[in-house]
């Protein structure tokens, strides 16, 4: 029996989408999980996976064409099967939808309800629209279906007059989900797993970081820097500055100065070549409620620390409110990630392409240090880890850069040398 493949809601806000390419041709055998086509939604390009096994009999919506959620896009069945009935049916439905859509009647006021409760229940049933495109469902069922990315049209309702209720959505979801392979009984008895569909940010973070980590051979360099003088300098500056200058602004400025002296670190892997970037654009990783984004301070070497601080404040605010434009968060030639405010002493970060290095900054903590004249003193220390792409930055090159940066942090006046 041939099955209709419908356009699914691939993002919560998606109403229609463009099929950017078909990866399977008519006549190809497809099995569950195969990617049939790529779909460009309002947010991103996503893979459309087959949920059935069979032969792709008919592509209804060709490459470059749009389909609304619920529209028939293809038919899968057994080889040689006749699909003309299904196609006619789909065409008829489209026509009917167009008709009802153009003639939505104004809300008819229900007749004055008798207050007898059973009569009132009947009034409720009659007052609701009953067209073929109206799906009776509880608010909770609608909310859950959206959360699980299920299409209400695909769910059979068991409530009064076919209302889809929570139990129906749960049932539909458990048939869609693949059963976990041999989960131990004790685990099954525990709470249900929660499937959280990706939002756009999560998808991009996952793709980019996986690509970076799996393709760029990372190595890590670690130092501790004494920050007492840097903190003094910051205090001095903040006495007169209109806005308090952040430690991150100092780190961006000093990193830019160090990169100026080590241009081979301000570079990117370009397949058959290495690009040494003409400008120093430094990204700062900013945590969002549900994701991560890296706003970029352009030409950090060419700007003073006050200007960097001012720009950074605006960028971080936009980042936290999800207002950054792509020009503001792409193309960092070097990146800084700080988890100091989360109390992390020391960590390593994944390189943020197109740059080839990322500096991971830990918390500032007091520690005991043996000074040059063999005395035990207390100093404020900051742990720095530099992750480098070995394809572009050899170990010695990275080490010279990090050492220079450490010296600048310990003695900021070196930035003038």
């Amino acid at each position, binding site marked *: 029996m041939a099955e209709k493949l419908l356009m699914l809601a691939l993002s919560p806000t998606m109403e229609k989408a463009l099929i950017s390419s078909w990866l399977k041709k008519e006549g190809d055998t497809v099995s569950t999980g195969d990617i049939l086509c790529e779909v460009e939604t309002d947010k991103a390009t996503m893979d459309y996976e087959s949920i059935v096994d069979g032969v792709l009999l008919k592509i209804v919506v060709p490459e470059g064409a749009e389909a609304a959620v619920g529209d028939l896009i293809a038919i899968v069945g057994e080889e040689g099967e006749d699909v003309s009935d299904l196609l006619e049916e789909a065409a008829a439905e489209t026509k009917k939808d167009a008709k009802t859509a153009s003639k939505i009647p104004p809300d008819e006021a229900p007749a004055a309800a008798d207050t*007898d409760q059973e009569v009132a229940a009947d009034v409720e049933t009659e007052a609701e629209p009953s067209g073929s495109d109206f799906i009776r469902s*509880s*608010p*909770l069922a609608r*909310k859950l279906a959206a959360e699980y990315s299920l299409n209400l049209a695909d769910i059979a309702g068991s409530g*009064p007059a076919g209302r889809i*209720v*929570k139990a129906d959505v749960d049932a539909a979801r458990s048939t869609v989900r693949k059963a976990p392979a041999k989960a131990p009984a004790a685990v099954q008895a525990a709470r249900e797993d929660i499937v959280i569909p990706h939002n756009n940010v999560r998808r991009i973070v996952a793709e980019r970081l996986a690509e970076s980590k799996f393709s760029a051979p990372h190595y890590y360099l670690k130092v501790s820097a004494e920050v007492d003088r840097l903190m003094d300098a910051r205090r001095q500056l903040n006495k007169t500055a209109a806005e308090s200058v952040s430690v991150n602004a100092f780190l961006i400025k000093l990193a830019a100065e160090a990169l100026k002296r080590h241009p081979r670190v301000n570079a990117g892997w370009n397949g058959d070549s290495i690009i040494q970037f003409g400008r120093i654009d430094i990204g700062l990783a900013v945590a969002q409620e549900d994701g991560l984004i890296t706003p970029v301070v352009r030409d950090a070497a060419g700007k003073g620390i006050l200007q960097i601080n001012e720009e950074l404040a605006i960028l971080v605010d936009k980042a936290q409110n999800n207002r950054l434009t792509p020009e503001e968060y792409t193309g960092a030639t070097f990146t800084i990630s700080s988890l100091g405010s989360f109390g992390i002493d020391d960590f390593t970060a994944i390189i943020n392409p197109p740059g080839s290095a990322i500096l991971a900054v830990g918390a500032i903590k007091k520690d005991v240090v043996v000074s040059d004249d063999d005395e035990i003193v207390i100093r404020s220390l900051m742990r720095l880890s530099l992750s480098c792409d070995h394809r572009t930055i050899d170990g010695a090159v990275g080490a010279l850069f990090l050492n220079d940066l450490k010296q600048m942090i310990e003695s900021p006046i070196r930035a003038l040398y």
Partner: protein
Amino acid sequence: MAEITYREAIRQAIDEEMSRDERVFILGEEVAEYDGAYKVTQGLLDKYGDRRVMDTPISEEGFTGFGIGAAMAGLRPIVEWMTFNFSLMAYDQVVNNAAKMLYMSGGQIKIPIVFRGPNGPAEYLAAQHSQALQSIYAHIPGLKVVAPATPYDAKGLLKTAIRDDNPVIFLEAEMMYSWKGEVPQEEYLIPFGQADIKRKGTDITLVTHAKPLRMVLEAAAELEKMGVDAEVIDLRSIRPLDEKTIYESVRRSNRCVVIDESWPFASVGSHVAWLVSRNCFDMLDAPVELVSSDDVPMPYNHKLELAVQPSVEKILTAAKKVLYL
């Protein structure tokens, strides 16, 4: 803890507050010489004398206005209405004087007064004497309205009502006066605006207040036999209303039945059902149901009298409806 009746709990609250604060006094029909039409004020005349326990003529508008005047002058009266059916005679005094004075005097004149008595149907009292009138008081800004359903809640809320600087409508019920419950020896107060979860549960939220609480708990026990774990919320205080407790429960259970022995139209129950529908919209798996009295004057025939009021059976029917059982 001692088990005492609802009647005794009310009496203890009045007694304790009268001995604590000499500005507190009680007036109403038969409260003194006859010890109260329902024996709530038994013994108070002997203890406090006729200047603080005052019999009044059968003239609700008169003695209610008298009480409001005394409150304006700095006393803290408790006005007993023999039943809330008779309070209709005094409705203008309550709505236009007691409820408005603080506002219209620009905050200068407080009205610390309690209006109390039995509300709602008892038995064999026919249409004029069987009315649950909480909604016509809850409707009025400037009034606080409480409706305790247990001796413990009655005592704690009445003491709070007497100490409140605003007019408080305190709803009791003839059928509840002999109900017993545990009440501690030591003094306690129950703040207004705090609902009480009388039974914890996860599958459905039953919201009620006043006398129907007992049948709602019975219905919850029946539901348990069917494998349904019901949560029972007793509002206790209608105004201020503890919306938070209701919403938290419905957001967990996804289903709600409101039980109110008043008529359905513009009632406390219908208002609560609307609040839940609006504020828990996305968490509801079924429309909120309301179990109320039928929209008719109370029949005198006893079978019909029972048939028009909420019952365990009606609550179960509504519960099954929202549970899709």
